[in-house]
């Protein structure tokens, strides 16, 4: 009879451990998903800002059509990739960042554009959004790391395999402000 009780206790402990691990994995996965939607919000804010920026630049530098088309196309590509997995989405967003870097280069050649209030305001907004994108990315990647690690360690790995938990991908995106290398002169 004693052995039955011992087995019963062991079984209860195992079931409780399974439930706790499963819940902790679900919690970590939800945090990761939540952080992903945080990135999504910031990226959409950037998509919304681009048409205004393009229109403003058009007003001062209409014949920079190639750069403006590149930005518009990159934005369309980024919007099309909204439901894509992180890696593809990161590629599309990095292409948009690169195209936006082109607008900054154009602005360097047009002092009137650079000095325009509207352009300055949009540039400031873009810089602020890109800061938020970077912060969201850090939060997401940190949550993904916690989730993936929690999933891989023993005995969580057993529960993860049985529960169909899949590792999440990290999100690496290059933003325009990161591409700007500060000029250093030694004179």
């Amino acid at each position: 009879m004693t052995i039955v009780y011992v087995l019963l206790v062991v079984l209860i402990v195992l079931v409780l451990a399974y439930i706790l691990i499963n819940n902790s994995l679900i919690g970590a996965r939800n945090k990761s998903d939540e952080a992903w939607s945080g990135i999504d919000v910031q990226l959409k804010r950037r998509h919304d800002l681009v048409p205004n920026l393009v229109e403003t630049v058009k007003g001062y530098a209409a014949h920079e059509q190639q750069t403006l088309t590149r930005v518009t196309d990159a934005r369309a590509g980024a919007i099309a990739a909204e439901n894509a997995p992180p890696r593809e989405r990161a590629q599309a967003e990095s292409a948009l960042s690169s195209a936006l870097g082109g607008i900054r280069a154009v602005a360097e050649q047009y002092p009137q554009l650079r000095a325009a209030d509207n352009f300055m305001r949009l540039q400031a907004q873009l810089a602020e959004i890109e800061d938020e994108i970077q912060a969201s990315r850090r939060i997401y990647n940190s949550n993904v790391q916690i989730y993936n690690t929690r999933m891989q360690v023993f005995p969580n790995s057993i529960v993860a395999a049985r529960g169909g938990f899949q590792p999440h991908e990290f999100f690496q995106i290059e933003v325009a402000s990161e591409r700007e290398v500060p000029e250093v002169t030694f004179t």
Partner: protein
Amino acid sequence: MSAAPPVPANTNSARNSHFRTLLGSSTAIVGGAIAATVAFSVGAASHSLPVMGGGPLVVALVVAAIAWLKADSDAEGEFFRRYAAVHAMHYWPKWSLNEFTPLLGGGDRRRCEHWMEANGRGLGWYTFEVRQENGDQADTWESHDFTVATVDIGEHGMSRFQGVYLRRRRGVFDRLNGGANWLAGHHLEKVELESAAFMDRFELWTSRDQDEIVLRQLFAPSFVVWLSDHPLRPGFELRAGVLVVFIPEHCGQAGKLEFLQMAAAEISKRIWTELTETAQAGSV
């Protein structure tokens, strides 16, 4: 105009020089000599060699101990006076803080020391004490020390932020100590943010009538990352148009105080930015 003398590195920096000055003071020498003579005379009158020899020695030790305690307190006062002077702040050794936020109204009794203030910003040591009832024995008091930096946010802040309370996440033992939980009894709601690292370090509470959109706008990803990475792990409370940024210790290091002031400035800047943006959106 002469420049203010530099701030000592910490509250103990000037203690040794104060100690030497006090020991060399006429009060210590004359008082000590009289007390030693009295102790010697008492020993001689009672024909006790140990009292004759040990009495003056005990007197010397007592004088040194008193001088040490006084030097410690003087060095602390000097540190804060000089810190205030360098930062163009007014200094008060004792102060009384209004109970604007739950922290400032925590415990059963409160005190505030080394208060420095200028242009709507304050900085100093704050302590709340919780009464421990011991039945027939006398009550004892459990102290909870903080260094707080306050910023006056103004009336507009009062209408947008009904109550936001961020503090370091408490451990199991802290949770068991109900008296130390100054937010208990304020009917607050716990808020979960998306950052796991942030939620590991902090707990965020708000008043039930706090607008959640305004709260989410304040806790933008960049602010969450900034708070998560900050080495001081500062908590803050925002209520009644007053921001209180705090760390749970009596901080006596110039560098750390400076850092806390900078943290308070950054947090208040973010709140003002949020208030300005909301005001602009409202006026459009």
